[in-house]
């Protein structure tokens, strides 16, 4: 990976005008050495600290704007007001968040399993893929809002129906990415396996699956968010309420009742959950691919 930024900042300590040590022989003697303040180089720390700082800044700006223009709370509440709503309704919102997360987790799990298996089937035979890939696309483009009623009719148990809806939304990126990954093995290695008389199963397990992992994780990253969105949308559409209601119900109700701070608090929880899921997937990616894949290994070319 290109590390322009990192390089430039490292060199700033020793020389001011030079873009990169390799760029030209023109400048006067330049020196590269290892002089780094450790925490600035600690990826993990930065990955949390920097966006958090930006977040605090943005929230501050938001609060200022809301106060400066005297925006009424029922239109756009300031972050402090939202935080207060979060605090006041903590129990309520947490219960709803839990419900939504359960549906998300269920849908994500089912989508991952089914999507991966479908992708396996696709790469086993070009005919299977040719025949059914367009129908996988169908899954993605059919608006869930339109078929949710049918699902609710067919799947009696309400929570199961929600999981099915969310699964349908999250499925496609996993199928698409995993299929692409399984097909993207290096042609040389594929030839080697063929030549060694590897069975399909061996080729799948030892070549295609490890090779597809980076793509698979990329699919998981997209689908984890979609599962969450799917859970929320499904709830919107299928409209369950009552005791075990999720965040969508709280948002809808807060909207109807114009309890906008609570609505934003619920939205904030969803967003936070989504970002957390995303980082979780990214972390999993780093952990599983460390040592061999560019996306998880710092470059030492």
């Amino acid at each position, binding site marked *: 990976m290109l590390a322009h930024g990192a390089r430039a900042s490292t060199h700033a300590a020793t020389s001011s005008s030079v873009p990169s040590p390799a760029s030209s022989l023109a400048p006067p003697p330049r020196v590269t050495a290892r002089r780094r303040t450790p925490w600035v180089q600690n990826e993990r720390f930065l990955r949390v600290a920097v966006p958090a700082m930006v977040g605090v800044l943005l929230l501050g700006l938001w609060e200022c704007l809301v106060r400066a223009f005297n925006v*009424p709370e*029922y*239109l756009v509440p300031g972050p402090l007001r939202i935080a207060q709503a979060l605090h006041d309704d903590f129990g*309520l919102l947490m219960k709803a968040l839990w419900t939504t997360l359960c549906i998300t987790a269920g849908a994500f799990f089912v989508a991952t399993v089914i999507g991966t298996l479908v992708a396996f089937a696709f790469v086993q035979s070009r005919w299977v893929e040719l025949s059914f890939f367009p129908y996988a696309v169908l899954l993605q483009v059919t608006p869930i*809002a339109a078929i*949710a*009623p049918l699902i*609710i*009719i067919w799947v*009696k148990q309400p929570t199961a129906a929600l999981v099915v809806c969310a699964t349908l939304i999250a499925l496609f990126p996993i199928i698409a990415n995993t299929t692409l990954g399984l097909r993207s093995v290096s042609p040389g290695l594929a030839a080697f396996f063929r030549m060694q008389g590897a069975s399909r199963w061996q080729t799948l397990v030892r070549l295609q699956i490890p090779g597809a992992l980076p793509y698979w994780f990329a699919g998981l990253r997209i689908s984890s968010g979609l599962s969450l969105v799917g859970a929320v949308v499904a709830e*919107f*559409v*299928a*409209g*369950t*309420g*009552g*005791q075990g*209601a999720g965040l969508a*119900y*709280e948002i*809808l*109700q*807060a*909207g*109807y*009742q*114009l309890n*906008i701070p609570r609505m934003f608090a619920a939205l904030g929880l969803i967003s936070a959950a989504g970002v957390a899921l995303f980082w979780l997937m990214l972390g999993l990616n780093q952990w599983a691919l460390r040592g061999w894949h560019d996306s998880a290994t710092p470059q030492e070319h």
Partner: protein
Amino acid sequence: QDKLTFLTSWYAQAEHGGFYQALATGLYKQAGLDVTIKMGGPQVNGMQLLTAGQADLIIGYDFQVLSGVEKGLPVVTVAASFQKDLQGMLTHGDVKSLADVKSKTILVAGNNRTSWWPWLKSKYDLTDAQTRPYTFNLQPFFADTNVVQQAYPSSEPFQALKKGLPHKFFLFADEGYPPYGTSIVTTQGLLKAKPDVVKRFVDASMKGWVSYLKNPAPGNALIKQDNPNMSDEQIAFGISQLKALKVLDSGDAATQGVGTMTAARWKATRDYMVKEELLKPDTPWQQAFTLDIVKQVKVLP
């Protein structure tokens, strides 16, 4: 004990009070019925669930029943809780009558474009161009004093009241909008097979309504159980609106009992739909309702 599933049209609220009251006070049990009340929601299509056998009776809507009959659906309205449809318009304080909305921006939800909107449009000479979508959120209304919007008497005006905003509410039914409100719809099949069960249900429900308006506490407890976000204040406001608008006991109901219907009203509704090309003229509209049940039931307010 006959088991029945009853599906409402929305999250539990004052407009469903009679049914919850009948459940809470044991009126259903006394009538030999074991009733389960399921909540509707924004995108829950009650007619579909009814015809699919997921519910035995639902809160229906006259237009939808007529459309269903046009399509050959075996559905039939057996009673109408309210003599007036509850749809109306919420305006800012400066609007004196519905005639004044001609100069306003009107928020109309998508699916209402084929219900009351054509009626309002032709009656007050409005245009499609002045409408904007309504998303069941009051923020646009509050943000712009030139906006008027559709509303239910018990919810949106309550928010306006709470915000202390000068506002007015106009019920379309008071201006001659024909359909009934909160009617009870079932399938031809159930009606034929167990007319007695249907009759007992209608009877108990109507008793529930009368009881609810006298002492809503038992019903409210159930409503709040299904929809925890419903505040006492809002329910109380809803009940007061129901009383003020005399939806239960006006017109024919005063003499023939709560829940009554007349063929003339149905014809008016049908004629309106035919005029707006919402219904084929040759639809056997008489099949959309039966007066047999309400004739046997006489619950005076």
